[in-house]
C-alpha cells in the first residue's frame, strides 16, 4: 500500500528481521535525510550446526530454530545500541522468497510488534534486499547491473529503482551455490560445500581437467551449472579412488570453469543492460549473495569488469550472505517512498523480483529460496 500523503524527508530508524532460510537475524539501521545508510546493530545466528547432519537445510528444523531464538535476537539487536522499540520508525521483515515456516515466524512476530506499537510494517522481498545492499554499504543507488549468486539463486538483473527490476538472465537448472554444494557432496567434502570446494581449489590445478564452460557464447544471459556438476562426477568416477590431489584439482577445475561461464554470461548481460538502459547507462556491476564470498569468483569478476569498463561493487561479505541489516535497509528505502504493508500481508515462498519475465524451465524450482 502507498500512503496518500507523501512523506516528509526525515531520518528513519528501522528494525529488520530475517528468517527466510537458515540464519536468524535482526538489525537496526538508520537512513539519513541525505539517503545514506548506517548500521547500528546487526546480529545473525546461523543454524548450520542443526542442519549439518542432514547435508542441507531441513525446513521444519529451520522453522523451529527461528521461533526459538528470534525474539532474543531482536532484543540483542536493541541491547547493542542505547535504543528501544520507542525509538524506531518501522519494522521490516523478510516475507519471501524462502522457506515458508521460517518466513511466517519472522513476519508474524513483526506483525505483532507493529500492531502492539502502532508502527508501520514493511514486508520485504529478500532478493530486493540483496539488490539494494550497495545503497547501504557504498551509497550506490540504482540503476546498476546486479549479479545475485547464492545457494538458491543465480540471476542477473537491471536494478532500475526500489521495486523496479528487469531480469536479464537466470539459471536454467542449478544455482551456482547449489552447484558448489553438490560438487562438494560428490567429492565427499563437508557441508556447506561452497567454502570447502574453494579451500580445496586453492592448492589444486585448475587446468588438469578440461571441464565444459556451460552456455559459452550463447546470445542470452542465462546460466546453467547442472552439466558442469555432472562433468565433475564423470571425471571423478573415471579416476576411481580419489587422492587428495585429485580432489583439489577437480575443485580448482570446477571453480575455474564456473568462473569462466559466469564471466561470459555477464558480458552478454552487460550488453543487454546497456541496450535497455541506453548508452549513458551507469556502468556498475553489483555482486551479492553468499557465493560472492568466493575469492576466485571475485578475482575473475574484478578482471572482467576492469576490461569492460565497469565499476565492481561487492558489499562486505557479512552483508552479502543472509542478514537483517539489508532487510532493514530495504525497509527504510521503501518507507522513504511511502510504501508500507498491511497486517494481512501473505508470506510468499516464491517471489521473483521481476514478476513480468516468465520463469524459465527448471530455474530455481528445486532451491530452498527459489
Amino acid at each position, binding site marked *: 500500500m502507498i500512503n496518500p500523503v507523501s512523506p516528509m524527508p526525515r531520518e528513519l530508524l528501522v528494525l529488520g528481521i530475517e528468517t527466510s532460510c537458515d540464519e536468524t537475524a535482526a538489525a537496526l539501521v538508520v537512513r539519513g535525510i541525505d539517503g545514506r545508510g548506517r548500521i547500528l546493530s546487526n546480529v545473525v545466528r546461523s543454524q548450520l550446526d542443526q542442519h549439518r547432519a542432514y547435508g542441507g537445510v531441513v525446513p521444519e528444523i529451520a522453522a523451529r530454530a527461528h521461533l526459538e531464538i528470534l525474539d532474543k535476537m531482536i532484543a540483542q539487536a536493541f541491547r547493542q545500541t542505547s535504543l528501544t522499540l520507542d525509538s524506531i520508525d518501522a519494522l521490516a521483515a523478510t516475507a519471501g522468497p524462502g522457506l515458508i515456516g521460517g518466513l511466517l515466524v519472522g513476519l*508474524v512476530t513483526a*506483525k*505483532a*510488534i507493529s500492531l502492539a506499537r502502532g508502527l508501520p510494517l514493511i514486508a520485504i522481498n529478500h532478493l530486493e534486499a540483496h539488490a539494494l545492499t550497495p545503497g547501504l554499504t557504498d551509497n550506490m543507488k540504482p540503476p546498476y547491473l546486479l549479479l545475485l549468486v547464492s545457494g538458491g539463486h543465480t540471476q542477473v538483473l537491471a536494478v532500475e529503482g526500489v521495486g523496479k527490476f528487469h531480469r536479464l538472465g537466470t539459471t536454467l537448472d542449478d544455482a551456482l551455490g547449489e552447484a558448489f554444494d553438490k560438487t562438494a557432496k560428490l567429492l565427499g567434502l563437508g557441508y556447506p560445500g561452497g567454502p570447502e570446494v574453494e579451500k580445496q581449489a586453492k592448492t589444486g590445478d585448475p587446468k588438469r581437467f578440461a571441464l565444459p564452460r556451460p552456455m559459452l557464447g550463447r546470445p542470452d544471459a542465462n546460466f546453467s551449472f547442472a552439466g558442469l556438476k555432472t562433468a565433475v562426477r564423470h571425471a571423478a568416477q573415471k579416476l576411481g579412488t580419489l587422492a587428495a590431489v585429485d580432489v583439489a584439482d577437480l575443485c580448482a577445475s570446477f571453480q575455474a570453469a564456473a568462473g569462466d561461464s559466469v564471466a561470459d554470461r555477464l558480458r552478454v548481460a552487460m550488453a543487454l543492460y546497456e541496450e535497455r538502459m541506453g548508452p549513458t547507462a551507469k556502468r556498475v556491476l553489483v555482486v551479492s549473495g553468499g557465493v560472492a564470498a568466493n575469492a576466485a569468483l571475485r578475482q575473475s569478476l574484478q578482471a572482467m569488469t576492469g576490461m569492460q569498463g565497469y565499476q565492481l561493487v561487492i558489499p562486505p561479505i557479512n552483508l552479502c550472505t543472509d542478514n537483517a541489516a539489508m532487510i532493514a535497509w530495504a525497509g527504510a528505502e521503501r518507507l522513504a517512498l511511502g510504501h508500507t504493508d498491511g497486517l494481512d500481508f501473505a508470506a510468499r515462498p516464491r517471489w521473483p523480483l521481476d514478476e513480468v519475465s516468465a520463469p524459465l524451465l527448471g530455474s530455481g524450482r528445486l532451491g530452498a529460496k527459489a
Partner: protein
Amino acid sequence: MTTLAFDTCFGACSAALRLRGVAGDWQLREDYREMATGHAEALLPMIAALMSAADLRFADLRKIAVTIGPGSFTGARIGLSAARGFRLALGLPVVTLTSLAVMAMRADTLLDTGHFGVTRAGAALAVCVDARAGRIYAEVFGDSIAEPLLAPALRTPADLAVALHGRRIIAVGSGGAMLAEAVTAAGGEAVAVLPGVLPHARHLALLADAAPLTEQLDPLYLRDTDAKPMPV
C-alpha cells in the same frame, strides 16, 4: 484484568478479549473463523479489529494467552510468534494452554447443553485429534481441565485405551471415533461425540484466569521432524 487470547493450532483461527465492562461485569469479545490455511494473514487483523471495537489500547492489556499445540507445526508457531512479538513489544505476562485443554472446555460447554445425550459427570473426557498414520494427539481430563488425567501425547488409540482401562470415556475431536473404537474393542465403555470440535479463543480467555504465568513460549509439537540424517 484485560486478557487477549488467541489460537491458531488447527483448522480455526480465533481471538478473544476478556475485559471488565463499565458496570464491573466481565465481558467477552471474540472472533472465530474456521480455515484450513491463512491463519498468519487473518490473526493480526482479527486482533486489531477486536481491540478497536472494544475501544482498547494495547497498553490496556494485562495478560496474553496463547495455545502452544499440539497442532499443525506451522499453526502452533503462528500463535507463538505473535505471542512472543506481543511480549517483546508490551512486556506483558503470558499464560499458555494446550490446544486440547481449550477444546476440552469447549466440549464441556457444549455437552452441558444436554443436546448430545451423554453424561459428563463421572466420565473421562478424552480430547483426540487425528494425527494420521493411525495415531492421535490426545489429552484426557477428569473433572478439572487444569489437572489432566493424562498429559498430552501422540499415541495409538489402542495404547490410550489400555491407559484408560476401567473408565467411562467420552471421546471428542477428529480422533475421538478412533479412540472409542479401540476402547470398545478392549471391552470398555466409550462414546465419541463432537468430532468437529476445534479450539476457540473464548475458552482460552476463560481458562487464562486460573492458568499460571509462564516464561516459556515454546511449542508443544509432540512429534519430531521427518528428516533423517545422512548415512555417515
